[in-house]
């Protein structure tokens, strides 16, 4: 079966140890987590994991089932890239003298729609948000001049279709 990029969104309680439980499910199947982000969600007290993996549809379905089975997971979804709006953020730390010595760097920054977040005597920092390939392109353009430090965040994503968590939680409240 064909492998694809999948973005798994997990709504869960914010409990210590759940990350361990979820990552164990990938570990058992030897699936590498390409990127992982844990944050607040649109619902107070509910956390959201955004996990990116490259695998087959069958495996991603099995994994989502096993994630959802964890007691503290409210609901999990898997989406392909065309079903979501997603972004990653990257920071590039570059030596300040390059701004003056290598004039095209200013053009690169302008054309890449990135931002300079800080400038000091020794270095400046560029922040770039976008799709993975956009960050890669900026990286490739800056690399020849020397990048002092580079870091990329995990993917964050929202789905085009609704993920009806509030309704789900309401049902439980009615049960109680």
């Amino acid at each position: 079966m064909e492998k694809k990029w999948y973005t798994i969104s997990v709504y869960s309680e914010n409990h210590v140890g759940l990350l361990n439980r979820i990552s164990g499910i990938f570990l058992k199947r030897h699936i590498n987590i390409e990127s992982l982000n844990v944050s607040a969600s649109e619902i107070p007290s509910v956390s959201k994991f955004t996990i990116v993996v490259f695998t087959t549809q069958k495996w991603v379905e099995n994994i989502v089932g096993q994630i959802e089975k964890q007691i503290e997971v409210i609901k999990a979804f898997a989406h392909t890239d065309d079903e979501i709006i997603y972004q990653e953020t990257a920071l590039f730390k570059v030596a300040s003298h390059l701004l003056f010595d290598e004039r095209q760097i200013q053009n690169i920054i302008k054309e890449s729609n990135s931002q300079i977040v800080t400038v000091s005597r020794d270095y400046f920092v560029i922040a770039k948000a976008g799709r993975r390939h956009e960050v890669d392109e900026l990286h490739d353009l800056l690399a020849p001049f020397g990048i002092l430090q580079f870091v990329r965040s995990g993917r964050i994503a929202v789905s085009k279709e609704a993920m009806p968590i509030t309704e789900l939680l309401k049902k439980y409240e009615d049960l109680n």
Partner: protein
Amino acid sequence: MAKQINNISGAEAIIHCLLEEGVDMLFGYPGGAIMPFYDELYKFQKELHHVLTRHEQGAAHAAQGYARVNGRVGVCVATSGPGATNLVTGIADAQIDSTPLVCITGQVTRELLGSDAFQETDIVGISTPVTKWNYQITRAEEIPEIMAKAFYIARSGRPGPVLIDITKNAQFDKFDFSYEPCKVVRSYTPKPVASEESLQAAAKLINESKKPMIVFGQGVVISEAEEVFQQMVEKTNIPAAWTILGKSALHTNHPLNVGMVGMHGNYAPNLLTNECDLLIAVGMRFDDRVTGDLKTYAKQAKVIHFDIDKAEINKNVYADVAVLGDAKESIEALLPLLNEANHEDWMNVFKSKKAIEQSQIIDHVIQPTEGPLTMAEVIHKINIATNNEAVMVTDVGQHQMMTCRYAESTTKRSNITSGGLGTMGFGLPASIGAKLGAEEREVISIMGDGGFQMNLQELGTIFQTKVGVKIVILNNEHLGMVRQWQELFFDRRYASTVMDNPDFVKIAHGFDIPSKCVKERSELESSIQEMLDTKGPYLLEVKVTKEENVFPMIPSGCSVSDIRLS
């Protein structure tokens, strides 16, 4: 009304939680970090019977045996560090075999967490992959809510083990206790309700099928669906086969019971899995020991999968119709939609295949007239002596397969075995728990010489409790199942499978357990009777054929239709 007691210690609070949950027996082993709990237990000896096992693994398996025989939550207790890690095999076994356990472990005091303190181990981290849920309590105030949640999660839906780790300070600290049972966890749906569409679709497939076959598993036992399941089988006249954990959900002598599926299961249901036009799986999970090669498993058939656990649907075998729900509720809802049917011709195919197995294998092993004793004939004699009503607890290996194949069962919850994990050493402690959980029943622990020696320290528990377990060691002086594979697939290189065994009768003598060793066919029947007539525990060692193989067999990785008779 919530129970309310002011200013009690966390340790005493745990006891009240247990009492509120209806616990009257627990299995465990004390140690430093759990001492405050044991100190309180001392004051509640009348209400809570603590069984001191001889190893924490024994406590976990005993709690499993207790839970499996009566459907209640098994409770086991251990201290921190090695006490906790010794529970892990039992917890893993309970997880894969869906057994409700609450495991309570002591932990170093809160201030010492993470400092590599004496007997500190990250048991929450260690047990995460093998528990349904786990939690570390570090404040006494958390105890009531977490314990209530632990019991609710362990027993609801697809049951499983829950581990609660409690730091020593939380056991000592005092607080105002109040208890309310847990009824809902908002992120957890234990019992989905089967959709009308899925039931209609299932009924349509069943009513239209010409050659349907049922494979039932432990889901029928767990949801206590035995009666309604039998009604479904009888109304539709569909041949029904079982996984080893499903055994005893339908009497083995029921005319529509066509036997066991899987690697050492019966010939007919394995072979005909690949000839049926509809496979109806009820409360089973298509384990690889059941399916063999998935690429050639029931490809010609439509599949209906009844399960309570959504993660099992389409995990191994694609379901044309998935009925997601509790087995009992789903079958009750399905039953009125099913037409009465007669599948006599199809049933006759099962009978003809069974006749082949009967003449080529079964007749030879259950009633041999010459040569050494066989495992199957011992089981056969036990069937007769117990009127097919005993609870058979097994360990893992050849004797387990022989017991599952040949023990007749006409009573519910009468087959307790380590299925998914295949844990050698399970049998002896599990039988102790089973007997304590069902004192009125005859509990027979069938073991091999290998598995018996993996947890034989539990004879000490039998000595102390005088629990009336009947132990039968089928001694072939080998690790028989591994030896069988070595014979068949490794050119008879018997690497580390030959056992030089001690004198088991003398060992039993040391524990004051009446015992006997049988070698002769002429003594077998009377020895079994003597064992059953003896009040209290008994150990019967039977010297059986050294190099007997369990057949039929589906070689590992082969198709169910490649089942071998020899």
